[in-house]
């Protein structure tokens, strides 16, 4: 018993007072990309050609980057000698619509809150059922991290629960493989109304690294409506928490 108390003191208090105190991301962290189309030479396609998922597009002098597809890999930055694309350390990425996640489109916007009725219902207590539907288990791992004491989502009233019957929303990860489609639909149907859906990670939004693989599927919204999209491969836990708090009108 005494050793447990002594160890407790040695391990210290570790919960970050988020959102009052903002986390410091590592210097090589690849967060929200920044586009500088004015630096792109005429006809250059260097970044477009190396992007594994076709997230970048260039029409005329217009460069866009679709965060729905972006894996936040270093390929485009490495391929561009002009500084046309760069990653910042900004971890805030979540959006309410897929259009709002296309950088350079003029429609980009961070997530807005749920409507007043839902924000009131879920704002102080949101129970989520997680459904892992394909993917690589990294999104699931970093969802689990949210319940550890550094992030401690419980203090915001957010909790992952064991049954869809106890849940207010679904937290979907993975591209929704053919073999998981039915299980996802049944779980969604088992949630009581009103309910929300969060698609976390590039897979759950667009298929991510598995875009175009017929068995893998192309994300959540072909199957069920999505209220919050959290980009990333996988999204950093702070990205997820930031998105959830915005959705609940707590940021």
């Amino acid at each position, binding site marked *: 018993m005494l*050793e447990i108390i002594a*160890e*407790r003191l*040695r*391990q210290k208090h570790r919960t970050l007072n988020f959102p009052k105190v903002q986390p410091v991301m*590592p210097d*090589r*962290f*690849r967060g929200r990309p920044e586009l500088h189309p004015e630096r792109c030479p005429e006809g250059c396609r260097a970044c477009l*050609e*190396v*992007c*594994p*998922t076709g997230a970048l597009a260039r029409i005329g002098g217009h460069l866009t980057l679709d965060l729905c597809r972006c*894996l*936040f*890999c*270093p*390929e485009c930055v490495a391929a561009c000698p002009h500084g046309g694309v760069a*990653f910042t350390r900004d971890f805030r990425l979540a959006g309410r619509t897929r259009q709002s996640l296309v950088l350079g489109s003029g429609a980009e916007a961070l997530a807005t809150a749920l409507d007043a009725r839902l924000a009131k219902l879920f704002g102080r207590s949101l129970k989520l059922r*997680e*459904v*892992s*539907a*394909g*993917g*690589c*288990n*990294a*999104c*699931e*791992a970093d969802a*689990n*991290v949210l*319940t*550890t*004491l*550094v992030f401690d989502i419980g203090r915001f009233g957010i909790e*992952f629960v*064991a*049954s869809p019957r106890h849940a207010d929303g679904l937290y979907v990860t*993975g*591209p929704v*493989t*053919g*073999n*998981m489609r*039915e*299980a996802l639909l049944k*779980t969604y149907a088992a949630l009581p109304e009103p309910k929300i859906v969060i698609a976390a990670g590039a897979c759950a939004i667009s298929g*991510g*690294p*598995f875009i175009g*693989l017929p*068995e*893998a599927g192309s994300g959540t919204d072909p199957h069920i409506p999505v209220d919050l999209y959290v980009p990333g*491969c*996988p999204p*950093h*836990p702070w990205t997820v928490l930031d998105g959830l708090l915005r959705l609940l009108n707590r940021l």
Partner: protein
Amino acid sequence: MSKLLDLAPGAAAPLAAVPVLSEDAFPHEVAHAVEEGGRLAALFGHAPQPSQSSHMGGIRLLAVVAFDAAGRLGVVAGELSRDRYPCLARFCPQAHYFSREIAEQYNVLPEGHPWLKPVRFAPPLPGALPVDPFEGRRTIGLTDYFRMYGPDVHEVAVGPVHAGVIEPGHFRFQCFGEIVHHLEISLGYQHRGLERFLPNAPAGRVLPIMETVAGDTTIGHALAYCQIVEALSGLAVSESAGLVRAVALELERLANHVGDLGALAGDVGFLPTLAYCGRLRGDLLNISALLCGSRFGRGLVVPGGVRFALEPSRLEELRERLAQTMRDVTGAVELMFGATSVRARFEGTGAVSAAVARDLGLVGPAARACGLTLDSRKDFAAGAYASTPILPAVEESGDVFARAQVRWRECQESARFIGCALDRLSGLAAAEAPVAPPRALAPDSLAVGLAEGWRGEVCHVALTGSDGSIARYKIVDPSFHNWMGLAMALRGQQISDFPLCNKSFNLSYCGHDL
């Protein structure tokens, strides 16, 4: 092993050098090699291109046998003239799961297989024979599950959606009272069709897929893949890049082992270690992010080397943060092993014997916990692992306690290894990001990549076509070997011990499902 082609991991050989046996001789030769101390690292089918064989449009089987004690691989092929062949599993139990996979992928029947059914409920691969032995039985969730009959026997079915934040899989327990007589694990829900996609895939798409075969083993799978590309294209890896890769692989092992030690504590209700290790696992992931910006090591390993260098200041920060983290890990884990209530729950639970582990071909900590001394970092030591040898952690009792102990000792060994690697790195010029332009792969060749991921041996095998493109790419995640080990661990246990047994293995669903 006279009839097998001798091959080193990370080396390539012309396909023509691989001995091709008849469908009758092949199973015997493979079984013989296993009897001689071999272990099936991979056994798979492929549909050769017309130029590659004097075949009759049949399927060819390929076995990669690991002789761990000798540190060598043996490769042998079998040419099937028909849609069936004598089943290898009858005299070589570790072949039974591979045989099911081959039947599912290529529609060829292992005659006399004791338990033939799909492993992923996926469509056959291109080049498969036209007649489907699983016609109408490829729908996930609908299969002939093993059943026990009798008064008071009951069945408990769980999944694919589980109560926690975990991957999907279906588990069926055949119980008599509280005692589990058999657990069937039916997977495939995470199947994304990777092996169908990889041949002739656009070059830029392959590495991100390798990094997400199993996201918690990003470095392990990326390393096995890069070894293959390097072998087939003659790319050399500098010493410093090799060291950075090994540091990343050990950080991946540390993060996962520490997280699982905490989860094991949680499964027996010992909450302090659960709480501390949850945080510490994150700290270790953040050290990987210090290296390359990603907590999972994404973007670090590339063919020819690594994309991010460890400059002196970063090296020092890494060393300092790791030392701090390991101090806290030691405190948290010693607390757990010091608690008699924890030990009472760990000891004797979910035991697997050495004989069963050997028969099933278990790998990684699950095998080492049963007394099997195999660790590809030692048995096939190359690069950083040759200059700083790893001492495998081996326990005898095969139970949850042994698996937890192996993991803890491996954590300590990884931390020691990283320290040595950092010492060595500080004396070298920083490993600059290689801008090696992609080179053509050797045509009509075969290469094997091996990496000791945190769950065990990650084995990749590639066969190239006459144009140097990938004709067949086989991925064997350690989980493919080990899921059956978990099923065996549950025999005679209480159903309430399942979470504990499961976490002590913590196998990958997506790595299995591909």
